[in-house]
């Protein structure tokens, strides 16, 4: 983890070169096991106003399985401490589909985070990826992905519970109290531009997507030589840019306003995707009122099948 002193330097540098809006959202990812009073104080001082805490689950046995260093109690302490330092915009990440996680465990986690007075909850279905601890166990046949039915039962339970406790689902995996949607992430889903700074950071500027090299030493060498080393650098075609716009936008509950996108790119998107939209509508995967396209309830569960139609 980056020592707090560097956070301070980064923010000072940003303030030196840019004019920052007064109530600009400034978020930081934190680990409940290592969050401390001095850190929180410093974050507050440099202008950070939103915390994201990687809770994952409320059962210590599951946290251990996930290889986390924190306990549920650490999370409660971190939350109290953060509030004491004046943070009121706080997100928690939670995960379902963990091997060994019961529906009862999940319901407990959902209830606890909903009652914790958070402004934002990110709720992810666990993906077992190669090269991770779970990936290795899966390869050895020691664990398997949770079956679809159970995974969806957990997901739908969370959606309902959060809706009943005042959270709006505004993206496939994200829930917020009114006016607390994450502005930073909304920018990704609406395909706004962004600059990523640091090793491995990604950027989108106009139609260029690029990523800094992940190896930190190579990154430093590049910066010092004033020749940044990139590990990805793609100039997107109009076609690809529109596809991205659709795919990212459809993740949002408010959907994609075709007129707006058509104006953005100077292409009649409704015409361009007419066949795909018809097919998806017939399959019941989208809702479309002639202006705005949204995923249907079924479409949210099968979003990839929708997205591939735009690729």
């Amino acid at each position, binding site marked *: 983890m980056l020592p707090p002193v560097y956070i301070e330097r980064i923010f000072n540098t940003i303030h030196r070169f840019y004019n920052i809006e007064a109530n600009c959202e400034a978020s930081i990812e934190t680990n409940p096991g290592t969050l401390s009073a001095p850190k929180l104080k410093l974050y507050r001082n440099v202008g950070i106003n939103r915390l994201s805490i990687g809770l994952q689950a409320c059962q210590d046995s599951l946290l251990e399985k996930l290889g986390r260093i924190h306990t549920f109690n650490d999370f409660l302490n971190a939350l109290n401490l953060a509030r004491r330092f004046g943070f009121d915009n706080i997100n928690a990440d939670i995960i379902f589909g963990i091997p060994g996680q019961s529906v009862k465990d999940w319901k407990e986690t959902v209830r606890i985070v909903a009652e914790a007075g958070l402004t934002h909850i990110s709720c992810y*279905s666990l*993906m077992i990826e190669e090269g991770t601890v779970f990936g290795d166990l899966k390869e050895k046949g020691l664990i398997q992905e949770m079956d679809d039915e159970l995974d969806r039962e957990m997901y739908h339970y969370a959606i309902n519970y959060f809706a009943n406790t005042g959270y709006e689902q505004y993206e*496939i995996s994200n829930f917020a109290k009114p006016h607390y949607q994450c502005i930073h992430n909304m920018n*990704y889903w609406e395909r706004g531009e962004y600059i990523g700074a640091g090793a491995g950071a990604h950027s989108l500027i106009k139609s260029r997507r690029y990523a800094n090299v992940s190896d930190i030493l190579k990154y430093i060498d590049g910066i010092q030589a004033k020749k940044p080393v990139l590990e*990805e650098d793609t100039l997107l075609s109009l076609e690809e840019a529109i596809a*991205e716009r659709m795919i990212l936008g459809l993740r949002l509950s408010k959907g994609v306003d075709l007129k707006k996108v058509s104006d953005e790119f100077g292409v009649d998107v409704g015409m361009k995707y007419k066949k795909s939209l018809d097919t998806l509508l017939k399959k019941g995967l989208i809702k479309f009122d002639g202006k705005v396209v949204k995923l249907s309830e079924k479409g949210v569960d*099968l979003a990839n*099948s929708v997205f*591939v139609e735009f690729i």
Partner: protein
Amino acid sequence: MANKRQDKIRNFCIIAHIDHGKSTLADRLLEKTGALTEREMDEQVLDNMDIEKERGITIKARAVRMIHKGQDGEEYILNLIDTPGHVDFNYEVSRSIAACEGAVLVVDASQGIEAQTLANVYLALDHDLELLPVINKVDLPSARPDEIAKEIEDVIGIEADSAPRISAKNGLNIEDVLEKIIEVIPPPNGDEKAPLRALIFDSYYDTYKGVVAYVRLMEGSVKIGDSLKMMHTGKEFTVTELGYLTPGGQIQSDKLLAGEVGFICGGIKNVRDCRVGDTITHADNPAAEPLPGYKKAVPMVFCGIYPADGSKYGDLRDALEKLQLNDASLLFEPETSNALGFGFRCGFLGLLHMEIIQERLEREYNLDIVTTAPSVIYKIAKTNGEVIELDNPTNMPEPGEIEHMEEPIVKATIMTPTEFVGNIMELCQERRGIYLGMEYIEAERVILTYEIPLNEIIYDFFDALKSRTRGYASLDYEIIGYREAKLVKLDIRLNNEVVDALSFIVHADKAYARGRKMAEKLKETIPRQMFEIPIQACIGSKVIARETVKAYRKDVLAKCYGGDISRKKKLLEKQKEGKKRMRQVGSVEIPQEAFMSVLKLDT
């Protein structure tokens, strides 16, 4: 009687089971006669197709001329005519044999005589060939040459005591074989003044020369400029080039005489006009009768071949046309399937022939193909008195219109060590075989003969035989006719729609088991889709087996933020690519593998 020129010629072939050393012996003979130096020699020059080399079998016959100086001080011309080593090419083998006066019979000193060897020995004896037995691989520790010599005498009834005992691999006693060829195999005869009769035993298409016919002149002579005629196809042409083949390449000559072996070109554009077994004669002075034994090669096994990518239909047609240039027995005609789109119904001599063509399409023409289950030709007597031949299950008439059906039957000869007799009998019984007999070749080995319906052999009989006998049994078969049978068409319905490419004809008693297996296999191969997919195996409207592919409920990437948009897009592209490789049948997407996997239900 052979004249003085003919006295110095020997025309012979080599008969051997796969792996018993035919090609290696051929190489040694060529090397010994100086036709080839070791340096020039690519291993096994006679087999010049890649697939042949990999499988260790020879598909197309070729003929090579060697010069050998005998111990009597005379120079002899030895023409080695290669023979295909597989049951599918039985007819071609018989034509090569008909071009010879003798055959070298190679038997492995450890393994003894095998089914295919025996089948070819009988062919050779039918054509009055002199047999020269040779016992190969005597250098191996497991060799038992004396017992094998006895086996040859017992089973074939020829003297084998003086058979050369060789190691083709190490070049041991090769000189002996050459001397024996001169001694045992008679020279050709045939009047060179008589009207021309030349037997075509092989032909291939050359881009520059047109069809090149390999011939054995039985009578008469031929020279450049002669006007010739194929006695069966009626095709006429003028000789532009003739000569003979040496391992170094073709040697031009100005004439060929009775008793000789060589090639003739005349700008013929299609191998169909130059069929193996046909007789070439002079157009203006024809022979009275063609040579006996001509048969038009008849395809016995059929299947549909489709391009995996529908837009490659034209490429597939071009490839098949090119293959056909060299393969008169390959048939194809366009067909359409609701499941696979546009493709071709193809006819083959047998299963191996089919596999070779499929492999060549994929390897040499770089095509991704999907094949349907192989079928044989059924004869159907309809209630209206009409009799039809059916090679595509899709075209089977309604059960009410069928009076009865007949299927082709083969006589299968299986040679095996006695310990596997039980397994083989079980297998043959499962495949509706009728036991004909069992004969002991030696204490530990027997020949089993069965009558088995061909449609039971074309699926995976070879594989099953191999796996149940640890590869020790060998098989040969020949079609013996048609027999009435209770046959039904088994259809597969996916989501209540029949998938034509998965239909096949099966014996009524086996339909239930087969239908169940197919349904199970399809359940494994068809991925979950957005809705539940019932898989049904049906005879007519009667469902005999049912499985269900459950609907998937979840297909979504939970996270997508600024840092992983490119990676997530790649995942979606991969998903789309996978979708493209699927065949849409009605509302169901079927992976290409599904069409292939149901072909091998026993393995």
